[in-house]
């Protein structure tokens, strides 16, 4: 009992208790490039969802599925490009590769979730990485969101090819992006923190013709 895998791995909460001002990956971009408020003419609205908990799970589909269902109550998407959400629509699991999934949960939940998953997985062969600090989520909503994406990604985003509940890793304006479609008119872009400013400025420029607005 004293030598289980869960006890052999040192985990720590990356969110400190100390009162330190935190800034979203786009804070600099808002100051430098501005953030036009959405208007009645805006056919697409951009919204950052910063400080969420992002975990990358690696391992076999069967053991991970069991643990995720036990801990989160959702099943692991077994088919490629799958994206599932919990009943509240705030926690999601996305297929990234045959042995890799991305878990996104409300900020602050990720440390406890990681520990509960480790306990559930015990000495199974797996890895969990907390990548919350390395990436951020940018949401695009509105009827022109798809048109904006058509100019920006190389992936076919037509509804017949990209239904709700799908997610892919692909190229966005020569950078890498994880593109997901959780709802009919809402798309999510998971981008590297270091690419967040570039992505934001690209979206503002490409979205100009749709009178893009930034909700904050």
């Amino acid at each position, binding site marked *: 009992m004293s030598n289980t895998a869960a006890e052999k791995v040192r985990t720590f909460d990356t969110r400190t208790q100390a009162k330190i001002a935190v800034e979203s990956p786009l804070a600099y971009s808002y100051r430098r490039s501005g953030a036009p408020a959405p208007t009645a003419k805006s056919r697409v609205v951009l919204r950052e969802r910063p400080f969420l908990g992002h975990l990358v799970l690696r*391992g*076999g*589909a*069967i*053991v991970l599925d069991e643990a995720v269902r036990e801990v989160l109550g959702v099943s692991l998407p*077994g*088919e*490629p*490009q799958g994206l599932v959400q919990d009943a509240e629509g705030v926690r999601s699991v996305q297929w*990234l*590769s*045959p*042995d*890799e999934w991305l878990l996104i949960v409300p900020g602050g939940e990720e440390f406890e979730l990681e520990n509960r998953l480790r306990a559930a997985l015990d000495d*199974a*062969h*797996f890895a969990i990485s907390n990548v919350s600090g390395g990436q951020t989520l940018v949401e695009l909503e509105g009827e022109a969101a798809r048109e904006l994406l058509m100019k920006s990604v*190389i*992936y076919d985003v037509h509804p017949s090819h990209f239904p709700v509940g799908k997610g*892919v*890793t*692909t*190229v966005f304006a020569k950078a*890498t992006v994880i593109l997901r479609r959780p709802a009919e008119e809402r798309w999510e872009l998971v981008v590297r923190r270091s690419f967040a400013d570039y992505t934001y400025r690209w979206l503002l420029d490409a979205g100009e013709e749709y009178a893009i607005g930034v909700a904050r």
Partner: protein
Amino acid sequence: MFYIHCPYCGETREEEEFHPKGQAHIARPLDPDACSDEEWGDYLFFRDNPRGIHHELWVHAVGCRKFFNVTRHTVTYEILETYKMGEQPSITAEHPEGRPTDAVDQQASLRDGVRA
């Protein structure tokens, strides 16, 4: 621009997402110490350069990031098939129309991609 089918994603994706990684099916000698210098040199440095059907290793670099095999025609650049690591090609220089079906390994379903 052309499209490549990733056997792990189960989709045909843009060429831009992939990188070629050289000749496929190069097995490391089981006992390197027993190799002659020539055998070891062959393994490390020498690669085939056929005119026609060639088996290559590619990686879905911006995507699932898995390595897989591509059977490609070096004259027409046509990609004849793609298949997972550990599998054997069904189209070869000896069988350009495809090996007899009983010789082709049954393709595992996509769910069975990688299991620990």
